[in-house]
């Protein structure tokens, strides 16, 4: 136990403060000594823990009648490390990883130059070095089981769930070519040339062909973790990103098959044609089987989510558990677990998102990002630790040839494949694109874990392999990872477009889809669009009805998009505090009035029922409203790392919507000359607002004194003031509604953001909304006198 204690202390040297070490004093021998004999199996917990509380009981009932027991004072405080050792060490690693991550982002200059993955590997090296210096045995952290079963799935699930389906499907042919043919080419090229080189070297002579090919197949696969880690920071355009990333995901099937093929036959003798043929069949089974398993679990999950409307809290759990089970099931049959995860996430997402509450959606998003982030960090740190630890056998020739071959094979492969692929693509890949694709072929921890899995007996050169793999990984991650960002800048590769999707683009995307499908039908050509259209119609007709609850299944995509945008804009409006001017280049003053065709003036009778406010009174009211509301401002929340959009359903917004609805309905009773209606009360988004998991969203507080319930009674002889106030609210509300719904929908056009504010007037027209919100929180403005006149 002394050893373990020291290791723990050494391990946390970088993390915990010094004094803690002294708490780890050598325990009195009684821990082990006196009770060693009395220890009976049934009292031991785990492998070597001594049970504190049951000791005394045990001793009194010692069956063998040991009477050499001496009474000792009751242990008030004692230490038992073994009891909690494993979870404690795991938590410590996770904590270390997270603290490192925190640390990097506090030093902005560093994170700009060096990608995070490199820094984490360095940290791992340091930690490993420290452990080794302390004389401890470095824990075999990058154990293959741990890696494949615990660390990898969250990252892949995160990638699969948020996979942009459209660009992925549009480029699927290219991606598959790179993944399958490219990886095969890499494996055989590297393996073959290495074999040839080894034969010419005296010391490496005994390396036969199959182990070389196995090595080639391990080291040739582009790694999704590394690609994600590096590409995320360079913000490259969507096409390149999806090409490299998609390739890294889909080449798993190839790697699995090749690995098992060569692993099996490396001892059993030469590979015959039959074996090669079986290998091809096996590849198809592995790939398609993985996708199928994932899809089945995806549909199950979507179906389950249909019934969760009453138990919203466990909705995220279904997503995670079904996905993990898909992965495990696929791994059970030696199918491609990664492809299963991807297909599960991609299949279930549209249906699950239509069914679950927004809070669950947020939870899923946050949890996935969190887990994948931690996993990624841990993987890189462990890589560093394993490097220090792993038995190394350095062989200059082998290692350098490997590194060079990896690069050369990748370049040749990409160029050759692009040449073929460009004949079939509409948007051809330029030389710049090819360079980035080739340069972005990073190797990572998967290769290392696969190498680690090799059996020592059958592969005596295992250590050499591992060393070479680690060198390749380091080279790609450090050299390529660090230089890719400046190269992207230098080559002026197109970056990711930051502009938001506008509604016009959405309309035209749909329009174009239908147009192209129609033209294909006219040409009589069953092309890409035709099948996509057929799939969509099938989906809409049968699948959606089955998997999506209620009327959401009928909501067309354009409308869903529109409602989502509405919500987003409304939130941003509310959160930005109203009075704060959005920093905009070109504030637009266009409003609904400008685009509506001129209407004939309203009938005289209608006008008369709306007494006009005298100008002075209006100004006064506006001033008071404005000053009140500027006291309560919401800070715009900011998100880091992954771009997470402001969530419309964070606490309180449900209430806000309900109140807004009430005001709308109230106003509808009166003369409504708004040309555009508010979102209908049972529009799907409104329903979701009400059905949000927070049960309080439903409770409408009728007589709460925090809501400015405006009593309107035109017939009663109210004082002109109150009617006028109502009128001001109503008119303001109408205008604000128009603006909120339509101006608000004016999302930042590609040129620059534009706040939909008319200077001055717009502030106050949104005030009733603001007033509602600010008075509903028991904030400082609650007890100020100036609020009173507006509550009638």
């Amino acid at each position, binding site marked *: 136990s002394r050893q373990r204690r020291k290791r723990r202390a050494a391990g946390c040297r970088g993390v915990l403060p010094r004094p803690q070490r002294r708490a780890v004093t050598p325990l009195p021998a009684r821990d082990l000594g006196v009770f060693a004999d009395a220890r009976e199996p049934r009292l031991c917990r785990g492998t070597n823990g001594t049970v504190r509380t049951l000791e005394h009981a045990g001793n009194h009932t010692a069956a063998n009648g040991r009477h050499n027991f001496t009474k000792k004072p009751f242990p008030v405080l004692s230490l038992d490390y073994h009891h909690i050792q494993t979870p404690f060490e795991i938590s410590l690693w996770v904590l270390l990883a997270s603290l490192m991550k925190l640390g990097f982002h506090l030093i902005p200059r560093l994170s700009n130059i060096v990608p995070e993955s490199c820094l984490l590997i360095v940290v791992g090296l340091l930690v490993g070095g420290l452990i080794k210096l302390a004389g401890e045995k470095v824990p075999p952290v990058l154990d293959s089981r741990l890696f494949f079963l615990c660390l990898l799935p969250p990252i892949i699930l995160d990638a699969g769930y948020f996979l942009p389906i459209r660009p992925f499907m549009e480029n699927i042919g290219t991606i598959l070519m790179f993944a399958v043919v490219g990886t095969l080419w890499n494996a055989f090229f590297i393996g073959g040339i290495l074999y040839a080189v080894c034969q010419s070297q005296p010391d490496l002579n005994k390396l036969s062909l199959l182990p070389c090919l196995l090595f080639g197949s391990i080291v040739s696969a582009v790694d999704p973790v590394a690609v994600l880690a590096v590409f995320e920071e360079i913000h490259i355009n969507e096409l390149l990103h999806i090409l490299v990333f998609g390739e890294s995901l889909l080449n798993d099937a190839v790697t699995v098959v090749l690995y098992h093929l060569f692993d099996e036959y490396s001892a059993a003798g030469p590979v015959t044609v039959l074996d090669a043929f079986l290998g091809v069949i096996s590849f198809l089974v592995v790939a398609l089987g993985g996708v199928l398993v994932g899809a089945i679990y995806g549909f199950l999950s979507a179906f389950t989510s249909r019934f969760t409307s009453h138990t919203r809290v466990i909705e995220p759990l279904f997503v995670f558990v079904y996905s993990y089970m898909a992965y495990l099931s696929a791994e059970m049959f030696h199918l491609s677990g990664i492809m299963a995860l991807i297909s599960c996430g991609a299949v279930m997402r549209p249906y699950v998102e239509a069914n679950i509450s927004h809070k669950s959606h947020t939870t899923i998003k946050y949890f996935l990002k969190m887990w994948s982030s931690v996993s990624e960090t841990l993987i890189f740190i462990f890589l560093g630790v394993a490097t220090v630890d792993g038995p190394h056998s350095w062989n200059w020739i082998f290692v350098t040839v490997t590194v060079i071959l990896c690069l050369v094979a990748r370049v040749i492969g990409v160029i050759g494949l692009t040449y073929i692929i*460009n004949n*079939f693509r*509409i*948007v*051809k890949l330029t030389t710049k694109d090819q360079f980035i694709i080739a340069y972005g072929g990073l190797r990572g921890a998967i290769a290392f874990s696969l190498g680690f899995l090799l059996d020592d007996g059958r592969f005596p050169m295992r250590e050499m392999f591992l060393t070479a793999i680690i060198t390749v990984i380091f080279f790609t991650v450090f050299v390529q990872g660090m230089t890719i960002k400046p190269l992207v800048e230098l080559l002026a590769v197109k970056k990711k*477009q930051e*502009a938001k999707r*506008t*509604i*016009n*683009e959405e*309309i*035209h995307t749909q*329009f*174009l889809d*239908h*147009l*192209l*499908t*129609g033209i294909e*039908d*006219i*040409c*009589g*050509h*069953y*092309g*890409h*669009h035709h099948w996509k259209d057929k799939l969509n*119609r099938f989906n*809409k007709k049968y699948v959606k009805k089955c998997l999506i609850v209620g009327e959401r299944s*009928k909501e*067309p995509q*354009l*409308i869903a998009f*529109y409602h989502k945008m509405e919500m987003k804009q409304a939130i941003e409006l509310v959160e930005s505090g109203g009075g704060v001017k959005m920093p905009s280049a070109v504030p*637009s*003053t*266009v*409003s*609904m*009035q*400008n*685009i*509506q*065709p001129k209407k004939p003036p309203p009938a005289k009778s209608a006008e008369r029922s709306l007494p006009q406010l005298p100008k002075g009174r209006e100004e006064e009211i506006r001033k008071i409203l404005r000053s009140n509301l500027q006291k309560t401002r919401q800070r715009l929340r900011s998100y880091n790392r992954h771009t997470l959009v402001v969530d419309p359903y964070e606490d309180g917004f449900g209430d806000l919507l309900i109140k807004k609805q009430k005001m709308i309905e109230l106003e509808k009773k009166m003369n409504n000359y708004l040309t*555009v*209606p508010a979102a*209908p009360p049972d*529009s799907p988004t409104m329903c979701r607002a009400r059905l949000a998991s927070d049960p309080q969203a439903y409770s409408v507080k009728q007589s709460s004194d925090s809501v400015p319930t405006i009593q309107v009674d035109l017939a009663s002889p109210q004082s002109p003031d109150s009617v006028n106030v109502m009128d001001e609210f109503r008119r303001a509300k109408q205008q604000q509604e128009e603006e909120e*719904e*339509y*101006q608000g*929908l*004016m*999302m930042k*056009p*590609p040129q620059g953001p*534009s706040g*939909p504010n008319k200077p001055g007037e717009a502030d106050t027209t949104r005030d009733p909304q603001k007033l509602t919100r600010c008075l509903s929180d028991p904030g400082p403005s609650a007890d100020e006198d100036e609020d009173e006149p507006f509550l009638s």
Partner: protein
Amino acid sequence: MGALQSLHGRPEYLDLAEKTGFSFEQIRVLHERFKQLSHNEETLRRSHFNEIPDLACNPIRAQIIEAFFDRRNYHQNGEGTVEEIGFEEFLVVMSHFRPPSLHMTEEQRENVRREKLRFVFNMHDTDNDGTITLEEYRHVVEELLSRSGALEKETAKSIADAAMLEVASISMGHMEPDEFYEGITFEHFLKLLDGFEIESRMNIRFLNMDTSTLCK
């Protein structure tokens, strides 16, 4: 694509190839299709288009068919519509969907873009006045949503209004409260769909069509 290539005895293909940029093989295939659609007559009419079964479930069917008969799409400054079209007009309309070639100058790419966007603009601007008014845009959105089963006319109107507002804000910037935004002109339309990359999206693969796969 020189005159040295075998023309299958069709000298008029040369002319068409030059005008539209299709290859001879593609023109031949499209001619087969044309004959199939028109039942071997010389001209196509709207009724022929209506016979295509797959087209029936397309929400914007009417606009697509109209586009073929719209003189504005014939690369001349034509106006108005015709009742029947010959193979040349058919091919010219189809040529709007040809993918841009790999090596193009910036200017050529811009021209291709304008051409494609002009086609879409013409489809929206049904009354040929050069602007897309609010009514016309509303009609577009309604048609798009018409086949989805949910006839939410009000929502369609809201969406169209929102889109219109967006265009106005992008193009006009400042407007006085009593100014009126007439409609989307072609220049505004270009500006609106600036990031849309229509030259890569609005394409049909004419590469590998052959007569055996022509559907009914």
